C-alpha cells in the first residue's frame, strides 16, 4: 500500500477527530488546525514528488484487487490538486486564527474545515466513481455546516439555496452512477474506461454523460447551473468564503475533466463541443455578473464562475482536436489555469477580509483610501487581482496564454475571442475594486476616517502572512512559468494517454 496516497485522507480526518475531542479547548484546536494543515501540505508535496518521479500511483483500499475494492489513484493532475488543497488549507487555517469570531471557532469550525479538506482530497484521489460520490457528500455536508455556522439570516438564506441545488446535483450524480453501473457493471474508473470504450453502441453512454455533465456542472458552477454560488459565497465569514472559492468548484471541474478525459470520450465531437459552448457562456455570464456588482466578495464570486469557463475551455478544446500535442496543450492550459486560479482566488478573498477589517465593509461604496493608507495591502491586492485579469508576467497570463494558443491551434477562433474579451472585462472588474476600495478617498463616515482600526501585531502576522505567501506564489508561478508549465504538460499527457492510468490501476489485467 502506498501510504502517501492515504495520508491526505488520514491527516485531515485525524485532525478533525482530535479537534472534536478537544471541543472545549480552543487553543488546542487552533494549534491542531494549523499543524494538521501543515502536515497535509507536507504529505501532499511528498505525494506530488513521488508521482513526479515514479509515475501514476495507485493503491487498493483493504487490499481488495481493483476493480472490486476501492482504488485510490494519484496521477500528476490529482497530486497537483491535492497540493493546492494543502496550500489553501494552510493559508486559510492560519488566516482563520485572527479573522474568525470566537463563537464560531468554538462551535466546531476547525474540525469542519478539516473534514472539508478531507472530502476535497478524497475526491481528487479516488479512482472509484461511487467513492467520488461519497467524498462529494462529505464536502457538501461540511461546507453546508460551515456556510450556515453562526446562523445569521443572510447565511441561512444563502445556505438553503446552496444545499438545495447541490442536493439536486448529488441526486443526479447518484442516479447516473447507478445507471452506469447497470450498463457497465463496475464503478472503478479505470475499469469503466476500458469497458465503456468497448461498447458497440456508445450513444447510450453519451446520454448518460449528460447527467454527469449536469451533476458536475452544478458542482463546478457552470452556466446555467451556477446559481448557488453567487447566492451563498458572500454570506459566511471570509475564511470560509476563501476556502470555498479556492477549492469547492474546482472539485467539480476536476471531476468534469476526469470523466470527460477518461470515461466519456466516445463522441467527443458532440460532448466536447457542448463543453466548449458551455465554457463560453460560463465565461461571459460570469464576468457580466461581476460587472453588475458593487460588493467586494460578490464581484469575486461571479469571477469564479467566469474562470470556471476558462478551465473547462481547455477540456472542450482537448476533445475537439485530433492532434495529441494540441490536446495536451489545451489540458495543460486547464491544469495551469486551475493551479493559478485556486491560489489567486483564495488570496483575493483573504484580501477582501482585511479590507473589510480596515474599512468596515465589503461594499465598494463604503470603502476607500486603502491605497493612501495601506500601500502594502494595495500591492498584495494588486498582485492577485492583476493575475486574475491575466496581466503579464503573473500566473494568470500564462494560464490564459496557453488556452488561447490551444484555441488558435485548434482553429476555434470564436471561443478565443470570447476568452480574450472576457479577460478585458475581468481587468475592468478588478480596476473597479482597485479604484473604489484603494484609490478613492475614504468616504466621510467610514471607519478609516476615525483613528484607523490598526491590525494588532498578532493579526498582522496571521492575516497578512498567508496573503503575502500566496502573492509570492502567484509571482513565482509567473516568473517560473516554464517549470510550472512543464508540470502541467506532464499532467496533461497523463490525462490524454489514458492507458497509463488504466494500467496503473488494473495492472496487466484488462
Amino acid at each position, binding site marked *: 500500500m502506498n501510504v502517501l496516497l492515504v495520508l491526505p485522507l488520514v491527516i485531515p480526518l485525524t485532525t478533525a477527530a482530535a479537534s472534536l475531542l478537544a471541543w472545549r479547548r480552543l487553543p488546542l484546536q487552533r494549534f491542531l488546525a494549523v499543524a494538521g494543515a501543515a502536515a497535509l501540505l507536507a504529505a501532499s508535496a511528498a505525494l506530488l514528488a513521488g508521482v513526479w518521479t515514479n509515475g501514476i500511483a495507485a493503491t487498493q483500499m483493504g487490499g481488495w484487487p481493483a*476493480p472490486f475494492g476501492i482504488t485510490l489513484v494519484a496521477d500528476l493532475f490529482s497530486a497537483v490538486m491535492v497540493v493546492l488543497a494543502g496550500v489553501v488549507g494552510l493559508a486559510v487555517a492560519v488566516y482563520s486564527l485572527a479573522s474568525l469570531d470566537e463563537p464560531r471557532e468554538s462551535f466546531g469550525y476547525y474540525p469542519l474545515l478539516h473534514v472539508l479538506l478531507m472530502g476535497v482530497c478524497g475526491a481528487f484521489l479516488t479512482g472509484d466513481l461511487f467513492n467520488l460520490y461519497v467524498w462529494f457528500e462529505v464536502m457538501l455536508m461540511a461546507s453546508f455546516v460551515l456556510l450556515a455556522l453562526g446562523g445569521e439570516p443572510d447565511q441561512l438564506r444563502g445556505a438553503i439555496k446552496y444545499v438545495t441545488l447541490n442536493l*439536486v446535483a448529488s441526486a443526479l450524480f447518484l442516479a447516473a452512477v447507478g445507471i452506469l453501473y447497470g450498463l457497465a457493471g463496475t464503478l472503478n474508473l479505470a475499469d469503466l474506461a476500458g469497458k465503456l470504450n468497448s461498447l458497440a453502441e456508445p450513444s447510450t453512454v453519451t446520454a448518460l454523460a449528460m447527467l454527469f455533465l449536469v451533476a458536475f456542472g452544478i458542482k463546478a458552477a457552470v452556466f446555467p447551473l451556477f446559481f448557488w454560488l453567487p447566492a451563498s459565497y458572500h454570506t459566511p465569514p471570509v475564511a470560509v468564503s476563501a476556502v470555498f472559492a479556492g477549492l469547492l468548484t474546482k472539485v467539480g471541474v476536476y471531476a468534469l475533466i476526469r470523466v470527460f478525459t477518461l470515461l466519456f470520450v466516445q463522441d467527443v465531437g458532440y460532448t466536447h463541443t457542448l463543453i466548449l459552448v458551455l465554457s463560453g457562456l460560463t465565461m461571459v455570464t460570469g464576468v457580466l*455578473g461581476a460587472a453588475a456588482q458593487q460588493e467586494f466578495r460578490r464581484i469575486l464570486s461571479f469571477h469564479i464562475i467566469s474562470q470556471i469557463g476558462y478551465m473547462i475551455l481547455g477540456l472542450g478544446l482537448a476533445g475537439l482536436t485530433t492532434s495529441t500535442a494540441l490536446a495536451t496543450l489545451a489540458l495543460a492550459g486547464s491544469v495551469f489555469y486551475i493551479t493559478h486560479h485556486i491560489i489567486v482566488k483564495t488570496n483575493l478573498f483573504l484580501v477582501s477580509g482585511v479590507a473589510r477589517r480596515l474599512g468596515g465593509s465589503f461594499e465598494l461604496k463604503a470603502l476607500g483610501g486603502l491605497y493612501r493608507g495601506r500601500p502594502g495591502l494595495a500591492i498584495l491586492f494588486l498582485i492577485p487581482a492583476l493575475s486574475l485579469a491575466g496581466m503579464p*508576467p503573473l500566473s494568470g497570463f500564462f494560464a490564459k496564454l496557453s488556452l488561447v494558443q490551444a484555441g488558435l491551434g485548434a482553429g476555434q477562433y470564436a471561443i478565443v475571442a470570447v476568452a480574450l474579451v472576457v479577460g478585458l472585462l475581468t*481587468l475592468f472588474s478588478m480596476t473597479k475594486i482597485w*479604484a473604489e476600495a484603494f484609490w478613492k478617498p475614504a468616504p466621510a463616515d467610514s471607519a478609516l476616517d476615525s483613528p484607523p482600526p490598526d491590525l494588532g501585531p498578532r493579526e498582522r502576522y496571521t492575516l497578512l502572512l498567508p496573503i503575502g505567501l500566496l502573492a509570492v506564489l502567484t509571482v513565482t508561478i509567473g516568473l517560473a*512559468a516554464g517549470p510550472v508549465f512543464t508540470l502541467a504538460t506532464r499532467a496533461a499527457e497523463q490525462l490524454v494517454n489514458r492507458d497509463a492510468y488504466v494500467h496503473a490501476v488494473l495492472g496487466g489485467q484488462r
Partner: protein
Amino acid sequence: MTAVLSGFVLALVAPGLYRRARAGAGWLLALLPLGLAGYFGSYTEAVAAGETVRASYSWAPALGVDLSFCLDGLSLLFALLITGIGALILIYAGGYLSGHPQLGRLYAFLLLFMASMLGLVLADNLLALFVFWELTSLSSYLLIGFDHERAEARAAALQALLVTGGGGLALLAGLLLLGQAGGSLELSVLLGQPHDLRGHPLYLPMLLLVLLGAFTKSAQFPFHFWLPGAMAAPTPISAYLHSATMVKAGVYLLARLHPLLGGTDAWHALVTGFGAATMLAGGLLAVTQTDLKRILAYSTVSALGTLVLLLGIGTSAAVTAALVFLLAHALYKGALFLVAGALDHETGTRDVRQLGGLWRTMPVTAAAAGLAALSLAGFAPFLSFIGKELVFEAVWAAPGAGFILAPAAVLAGALFVVTAGLTGVRPFWGAPRATPRPPHEAPLSLWLGPVLLAGSGLLFGLWPALVAAQLVSPAVTAVVGHPQHVLLALWHGFNLALALSGVSLVLGLALYLGWNAIRRASACLEPLLNRGPAMWYEVALRGLNRLAQGQTRLLQSGYLRYYLMIVLVATAGLTGATLVRRGRLASPVDWSGLSFYDAGLALLILLATAAAVLARSRLAAIAALGVVGYSVALVFVLFGAPDVAMTQFLVETLTVILFVLVFYHLPESPAVSHTLARLRDALLAAAVGVLMTGLVLLAGDVQYHPPISAYFAEHSLADAHGRNLVNVILVDFRGLDTLGEITVLAVAGVGVYALLKLRVGAQGHSAAGSTEVQPARTDAAPLEPEPGPVPAVNGAPQDGGLALANPAAEEGGGR
C-alpha cells in the same frame, strides 16, 4: 537583459530610497537611466556596422515565451530615447512634485515603466514583447491615476487602460497567429526566413489584429480620445509616457513588423488612411484647445498620425522621414511638455489665455520653450526642419496617393506652427497677465530637461551627421530590411519639399494670427472628431453595465424555485436532446419476467405518487410519500435484499415522523402558485421523470458487461469471513465509502448542534445584502421561503440517510 532587469529592481527599491534621500532621490535615480544610455551608446558603433547584439534567457519555452533580446538600429534609437529622456524626467519629477507624499511610488512606477518600455523595444520574442507591452499599459494606468483621489483621474486611467488593454488583447491574438503562420515567435527567425506571411490565408486577420493593437496604443483616430484624457497624469509623466515614448510603441511595432506584414495593398490602405486621418484630426483638435497640455496632447496625436502615415507608405524615403521625425518630435515635444509643467508649477495655470509676457520672470524656461517651439514649427536649422522636408518629400512621392496626402501634410504642418505658437511663444511674449500665483523662474531640476532636449534639437539640426550615420541609418536599415545609408542635410536645394515647407510655414503663421477666430470656427469639429469616438467608449461602457445588470437580474433572480427550474430544464434538455439525437429513446422492454407482485408494487408506487402530488393536505401528501417509500422497500425484498429493505423501512418511517412533527407546527398554507405555474411545474416534473425512467430502462436494456458483484459473492465468506454480502460490502469491500458516510453523519451532528445552539448576532456587514442582485429588489426577500433552522436541521439527517441507504441498494441489489 540586465539593462531591462535593473530598471525593475530599482523600481522595487525606489520608494525606500526616496524615504532616505528625499530631494536628492530623483538625481540619484537618474543615474541608472543615464548609465544605461551610456551602455546603449557604447553599442552605437557596432550596431552602425551592421551587428545585432543578442541575449536570450529561457522562460516558458513550451509556450513560446522566452526572454530573448536583440539590439539593432531601431531598438537602439528607441533605447537611447527611453533612457536619455527617462533620466531627465526622473530629475524633473523630483522638482515638480517635491514634497509630495507619494513621490516614492511615482519613482517606482516610472522606473517600472522605463524598464518595461526598454524590454518592449529590445524584445526579440514576440510574446516577451507583448509582456512588456502590457506592462507599459499597466504602469501608464497607475501613473495616470497618480492623483487618485480625483474621480476624473481615475476615469481617465481606466479609459486609457481599457482602450490600450483591449488593443493589447487583439495584439496578442495577432502575434500568436503570426507565430503560428510563420512557425516561430522569434522576430529574428521570422525575419530571416524566406516564406512570405503576406500570402498566408490568415494574413488579413493577423494584420487587422496587430493594427488594432498598434493603433490603440499609438492613439490613432478613432481611438485617440484616451490620450488627452491621460493628461490627468502629472506633467513629467505626460511628457515621458504620453508623448515621447509609450505612445510610440505602436509606431515601433509597425516599424518592426513592416518587413513581415508591410507592403500589401491592405497595409497601405489601412495604415496610411488611419495615419492621415489621425494627423489631420489631431492637428485640428489641437488648435481648438486652450489648456497647454491638451494642446500638446492633440498635437502629439497629430504627430503620431504622421508617423503611422509614413510607415504606411513604407518606402525607404518614408521610413527615413518617419525616424527623423520621431527623433525630432521626442525632443521638442518632451521639452514643450516639461515647459508646460514648469509654467503650471510656477504660475498655477495651464490656460494659454491666462499666460503672457513670462519671459521676464522665467527667462531660461522661455529660452527653452522658444527653441522647442521653433523646432515644432519646423524652422531651420532645427532637426525637425530636416524631418519636415523629408516628410513632404516622402509623402509627395507616395505611390498613387501623393496628391492627396501632400496637401494634408502641409495643412498638418501649418497646424503644428499654430501649436508651436500657442505653447512656446504666446505664454512668454506679449503683455504679462495676472496668474493665480506670482510667477518666478523654475528651479534647475525643472528647466534642465527642456533646455537639454530643445538644445539637442538644435544641435542635431546644425550637425545632422551626428545622428545620420550612427543612429538613423541603422534604424532605417532595420525597418526596410536592407542596408540604407541616410544622409541628412539642412539644405536640400530649391525643390518641391522646400516649397511645401514654406507654404506650410506661411499658412501656419496666418492661422496663428487668426487663432481666436479659428478656434471658434473649428470648435464645431470637436463633436465629430473627439466627442464622437469618445462617446462610443462611454456608450459601450454604459451598455456593458446595463447588459450586465439585466443579465444578472434575469439569471440570478434570488428565487430558489427559478434556480431549480433552470437546473432541471438544463438536465432534461441536455439529456433529452442527446437521446433524441441518438434516434431511439429505448427499445421495447421485455415484460415477460414480470411477476404479479412486481406489477402490483409498480402500480402501487405510481398511485401513491399521484396521490402525493394531488393531495390537498400536507399530512395526506406525506402519508402518500410514505407509501412510495415502503413500496420501494418491498421492491428490495422482492429482489432478495432484506438488509437494504430494512434500512429503507427505518429511513422512511423516520422521515414520515419528522415531516409530520414539523408540519404539525406549520400553519396551513394557501395555494401559492396559480394554475399556469402549476402546469409548468407539472410538465417539467413529468419530463424529468420520463427521462430518468428512460435512462434506467436503457441501462437494463443493454447490459454490456457482467457486473463485478459475482466476485463479492465468491469472496465474501472465503476471504472476508462474512456471510452477509451487503454487510461485507459496506464494512470491507467498500469500507472507505462507509467511513466517508460516517463522517457525513458526524458532521451533520455537529451541524445540527451548532445551528440550534449558535446564533451570531447580525454584525451589520451583511445588512445591505439581503438579495443577490445588487440593485436590490426589496420585494424578493419576503417571497422567499424563510429558511429557519427547521428545514436545515431536517435536511441534514435525511441526506445522511439517503447516502447511507443507497450504496447498499446500488451494489447489494445485484440481480
